[in-house]
């Protein structure tokens, strides 16, 4: 491209109105119209058909979306993940042909869904394999690792999931917040250490979330493009929080008349709480779904580890407030704790009752995006006016980063 082209464009822009003229719109539509014509042409002539003779087998792909167990048997929702129409012919449970009904039907178009009801006498606590056979006899398999009744929304179950959420999210975060008075008395060097520690903690959660998100993403049906969905969610959450943070800062700034450090610290604390809240929401989802899949076993050492692990999240929320030497009322702390912890409860409900792998990936992605944004914010705050690299090279900061990651790693070991 020659250098004079942009100049010409600018010249035309300047001479014309700011908004695109009618001619410009038409010009924008021409490629679209051509594209539509091309698509019609492809559908009409079907060039791929010449590569795919009559006898060529169908591309059959089915994915199990959700499998539930109740007193009537097994209920499985199935998605056609492939390009061609797939017809479900038979259902095998543990290698035995079994009766089933399909709602709305057995013929699934691309991305079509159906729900199979299989009156199979499953055995509590044991494993079962459900196999769907298509009209060509191609089997698609789902393993019920441990058969338990799928929880249905009921008062008691809601209460149990709420309690789980409280213990996983709200209480550990709240305990972490109680460090605030102590943190507020520390020297500024210790403060740098503390913020770096927070970044270390968050980086750990980031690694954890990315791993789980990508893993879950790759397990999704191909059409859902799990990895892309995960990146999209994470990127979206990051940018959204950047925007929200900017907006909050402007609001605070307008209120106090200046954009003081105090309000900056408050905004940062809120953002961290939101980030951790989103992360905990994803965690709640995983927990709820694991319960509904019957994968919960017993072990009390693990509870201890888990509580330790999540207490550090509270610490991360209040660290920027302490560093800014800001006076914080108990009401504010409670609010921060609720933002960070309560989503776990909602996540557990959702995961337990309306388990969906697609939503799981999306929420893991949101958590990751939020955590990344918060870590980024804290590093910015740590650095102040100095170059980030110079600030990070300080001994206290390096030690903090390492300690943060190390604490998470060590407590993570306790929970597996």
């Amino acid at each position, binding site marked *: 491209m020659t250098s004079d082209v942009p100049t010409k464009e600018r010249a035309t822009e300047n001479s014309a109105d700011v908004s695109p003229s009618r001619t410009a719109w038409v010009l924008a539509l021409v490629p679209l119209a051509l594209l539509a014509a091309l698509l019609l042409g492809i559908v009409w002539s079907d060039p791929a058909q010449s590569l795919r003779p009559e006898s060529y087998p169908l591309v059959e792909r089915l994915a199990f979306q959700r499998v539930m167990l109740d007193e009537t048997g097994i209920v499985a929702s199935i998605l056609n993940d492939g390009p061609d129409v797939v017809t479900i012919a038979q259902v095998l449970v543990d290698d035995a042909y079994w009766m089933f009904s399909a709602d709305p039907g057995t013929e699934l178009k691309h991305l079509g869904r159906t729900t199979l009801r299989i009156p199979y006498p499953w055995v509590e606590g044991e494993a079962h394999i459900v196999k769907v056979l298509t009209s060509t006899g191609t089997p698609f398999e789902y393993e019920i690792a441990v058969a338990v009744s799928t929880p249905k929304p009921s008062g008691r179950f809601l209460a149990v999931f709420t309690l789980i959420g409280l213990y996983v999210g709200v209480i550990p975060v709240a305990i972490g917040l109680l460090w605030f008075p102590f943190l507020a008395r520390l020297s500024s060097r210790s403060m740098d250490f503390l913020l770096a520690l927070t970044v270390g903690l968050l980086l750990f959660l980031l690694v954890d979330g990315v791993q789980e998100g990508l893993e879950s993403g790759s397990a999704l049906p191909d059409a859902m493009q799990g990895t892309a969905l995960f990146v999209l969610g994470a990127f979206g959450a990051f940018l959204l929080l950047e925007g929200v943070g900017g907006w909050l800062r402007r609001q605070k700034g307008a209120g106090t008349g200046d954009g003081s450090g105090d309000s900056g610290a408050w905004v940062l604390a809120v953002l961290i709480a939101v980030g951790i809240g989103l992360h905990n929401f994803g965690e709640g989802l995983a927990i709820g779904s694991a319960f509904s899949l019957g994968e919960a076993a017993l072990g009390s050492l693990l509870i201890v580890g888990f509580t330790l692990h999540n207490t550090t999240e509270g610490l991360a929320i209040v660290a920027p407030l302490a560093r800014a030497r800001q006076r914080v009322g108990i009401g504010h702390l409670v609010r921060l704790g609720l933002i960070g912890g309560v989503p776990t409860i909602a996540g557990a409900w959702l995961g337990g009752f309306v388990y969906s792998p697609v939503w799981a990936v999306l929420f893991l992605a949101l958590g990751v995006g939020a955590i990344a944004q918060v870590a980024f914010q804290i590093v910015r705050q740590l650095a102040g006016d100095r170059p980030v690299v110079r600030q990070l090279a300080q001994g206290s900061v390096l030690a903090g980063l390492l300690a943060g990651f190390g604490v998470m790693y060590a407590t993570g070991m306790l929970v*597996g």
Partner: protein
Amino acid sequence: MPWGITRRSWLRVAGLGSLAGGLVSGSKLAGQQGVSHPASHDGHLAGPVGRVSTADYDPTAFLRSWNFSHLPPAERAQFYTETPRPDGTLLREYELHSVDREIEIAPGMFFPAWTFNGQVPGPTIRATEGDRVRIRFKNLGSHPHTIHFHGWHPPAMDGSLPGQEVHPGESFVYEFDADPFGLHLYHCHAIPLKRHVHKGLYGAFIVDPRPTSGSRPPADELVMVMNAFDTNFDAENEVYAVNTVANAYANDPIRVTVGQLVRIYLVNITEFDPVNSLHLHSMFFDVYRTGTSLTPSEKTDTLMLCQGERAIVEAVFRYPGDFMFHAHQSEFAELGWMGFFKAEEK
């Protein structure tokens, strides 16, 4: 794992399980409650859903048909003729064609089979000891095939040796004497062997004893070929059956008469599994292994046959009613190899 729940996150959950358990003192999580009342164990719930069309191939008609006896005379003459020979034996001439064809092996499930004359198992060939058997084989399929008969014959008629493949569009005439009397089989012996066999190229070959050898008493005679289909070609079968169609005789019981001798020509051609078996409920039967003797080799209610092995089974139904029969490998039974006899008073 459907949700990609990592070891870490689910161990976490594991910890929570005990936590929640403690919190809801005494009351257990609904999901972890003792054995509830799962779906009914009603036997009608098992088995494939729906019915297979019998327009092209009727398993019930197959049972009692040999030498194309199920066809109207004019049509039958195109595939089978018999000509008396001076020594009193017959020249039996058959037209067998290999044809690629999609067959319905369980309701709604279609298998891209290679067939003899469009059906699996192929037409039952039945001759008397000493008869001349002449098979005009035409390969109308897409791959080279052969017909390999069990029985006495010169190697040139074996259909298994290198160079004996009959290529698509070509023909070959197999000719030999029916010998010895007994229950035999025929199948394609082109390579890869497993594929050519399990795709459906096989059938039963019955040789009745000549009068000088003795005779079997009159009976209601049934041909049963135990076979199976690997629908996704992973060397494991998805459908097991007698005479191809899963649960065919569970849906349409085989009607027999109380007190009348029933003779079953039982052939095992199941690929990928070392053995198959027949278990007949509520009775015992006589077994003539390979059918080469007129004296029963054993009396049992469960008979095991290796692939290619066969036996003549003679049973008399003592009581009226339904008699279940199936492979006594429960797995095969639940994958389609199960049926009923319905015994009725005369």
